[in-house]
């Protein structure tokens, strides 16, 4: 797609978003003008809002969005980024609190622990699929609920702060926290980590054999095995691990860079928004930078909308769902016009789930 064309698509998308928002607001009887102004000023309207509200939220959305994209590309329907994020946050907090003297080395260890924990949590779903044929759509959602209850237990039990009053851990010492970017408010260096990882994922799909194996295993497992001599089971397992690691990393970055303590509500559903983020970006890791920022701006602005115009914050999830549906509809229409003569049962809107 040429630069001009993608710019036009982006502008059309934002215009459609604004129209949809206004219609929804007006049917709800809310002052659309006040609400949209609040949305703007709370998300992108000032340097402070851009950095401390929008980009701070964009970091976990980039990482979880990348997690969803990697999985979906490889035909793995990982709906479990939320649970993998929570597990990653718990592992990172445990390491960070256990080794407060370690400074940046502890930070590194904590990030690694988060990624490993997220990969392991996704690994359960991988094992259930390869050994027992359990659909990962169901297993990863079950694992989300289990992770949430396990986290609730941890912050009220073994990891609770010493006074045992609040359901959260102690605060992570400053030396272990991720450094803030000078002049950018609450924004921390996790942003660079997220950008680097998305860059690497995009590179993986565009220029490496492993990335090609993931794509082929997702598009057509049987062709991958017979014509490409690809070990599909192994490739799929790797997709689960990579996806889980990215989501776990999001949790670690969040706890080390934003919340500085572990508690139940550490994620406002980043792992679910991530599905919209990844689909809007066409499952392309590089474009996720933009779609994550867009959704982060919406989520940053929803608080301001609620405050200034009394608009329920849940309206943003309606917008997110409508965006996914719009993307599906456009993709389906485009696919139809391109190959109206082909057998419809081969339609790959995104990789079709195998078996």
């Amino acid at each position, binding site marked *: 797609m040429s630069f001009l064309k993608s710019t036009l698509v982006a502008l059309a998308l934002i215009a459609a978003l604004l129209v949809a928002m206004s219609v929804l607001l007006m049917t*709800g009887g809310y002052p659309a003008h006040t609400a949209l102004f609040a949305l703007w000023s709370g998300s992108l309207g000032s340097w402070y809002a851009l950095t401390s509200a929008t980009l701070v939220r964009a970091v976990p959305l980039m990482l979880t969005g990348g997690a969803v994209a990697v999985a979906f590309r490889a035909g793995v329907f990982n709906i479990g980024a939320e649970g993998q994020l929570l597990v990653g946050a718990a592992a990172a907090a445990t390491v960070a609190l256990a080794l407060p003297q370690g400074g940046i080395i502890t930070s590194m260890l904590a990030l690694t622990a988060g990624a490993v924990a997220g990969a392991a949590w996704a690994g359960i779903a991988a094992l259930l699929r390869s050994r027992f044929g359990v659909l990962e759509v169901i297993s990863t959602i079950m694992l989300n*609920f289990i992770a949430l209850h396990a986290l609730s237990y941890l912050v009220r039990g073994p990891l609770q702060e010493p006074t045992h009053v609040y359901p959260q851990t102690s605060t992570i010492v400053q030396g272990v926290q991720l450094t803030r970017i000078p002049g950018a408010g609450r924004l921390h260096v996790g942003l660079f980590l997220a950008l680097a990882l998305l860059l690497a994922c995009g590179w993986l799909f565009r220029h490496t054999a492993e990335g090609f194996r993931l794509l082929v295993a997702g598009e057509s497992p049987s062709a991958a095995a017979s014509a490409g001599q690809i070990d599909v089971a192994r490739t799929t397992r790797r997709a689960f691990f990579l996806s889980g690691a990215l989501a776990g990393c999001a949790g670690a970055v969040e706890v080390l860079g934003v919340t500085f303590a572990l508690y139940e509500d550490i994620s406002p559903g980043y792992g679910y928004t991530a599905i919209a983020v990844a689909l809007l970006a066409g499952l392309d890791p590089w474009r996720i930078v933009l779609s994550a920022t867009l959704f982060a701006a919406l989520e940053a602005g929803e608080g301001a909308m609620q405050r200034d115009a*009394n608009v329920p914050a849940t309206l943003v999830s309606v917008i997110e769902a409508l965006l996914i549906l719009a993307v599906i509809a456009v993709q389906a229409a485009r696919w139809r016009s391109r190959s109206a003569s082909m057998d419809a049962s081969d339609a790959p809107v995104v990789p079709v789930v195998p078996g």
Partner: protein
Amino acid sequence: MSDVIAPFLAATIRTATPLALAALGEVIVERAGLINIGLEGAILAGAFGALVGATGAGVAGGFAGAMVGGVLIAILFAVFAIGLRADQIITGTALTLLSVGTTGTLYRALYGSSGAALALPTSAPFAIPGLSRLPLVGAALFAQPPITYVMYLLVPSIAWWMAGTHGGLSLRAIGEKPDAARAAGISVARVRVLAILAGGVLGGLAGGTLVLAQAGTFAEGMSSGRGFIAIAIVVLGRWQPLGVALAALVFGGASALQFAFQAMGWHAPYQLFLALPYLLTLAGLASAAGRGRAPASLGKS
């Protein structure tokens, strides 16, 4: 001992009823070769529909509203999955998100952003004369809200319909070999749309059950994964109505163990009990591996 067993059985049936309703609907959908992850959204929309209906027109209005809510989500699923041939899993996921957002927004807009719980008219238990006097199981099985009896009747009805009628045969044929069914003159799209709508009605009723026969109120996100659990129950019940009803009962019983444990003075972190339904679903799915066979065209078109 009976002071433990009777409440245990009652809790089993209570948990199983909405799950069985939703799973029976999904059986019809899956036997047509479709997988609707949006069932979770249909249950939630049903719960919200029940709230709206019951505030206006009592319990009956509540169940009517619940069916409308479930059907609305089902219509959207049909438009995308059948009309546009979009990916079923992604469509279902999006519809669940849409239902969570829409019900939450409407709830706050209509009933105040405080989200204070509303007390609704509820569907009272109705003791069936005679049967409810049976020792031990009588009260648990036959002194339930009427919707439970609807579920009892639906199990054999759907089983008979699928096995013994022309419509049921068409449904199963489409699920196994859509091309052959099409060649035999069956309108695949029409049957699939009808199956999706039936699934929406039953999913909506499941949500209505939660509100009208159990909680007596609506809460945001109150379906809490039951749609996904119901889809797992379809697998455990091997895509058969009777099997699904049994799987829902086993599941309800296992979840109700927490009440028995608490009554017996067992101590464990309460989060373990809260996580139990999800752990059981995973264990059940793993143990069902290789037994029973999914409809051949499931999720493929």
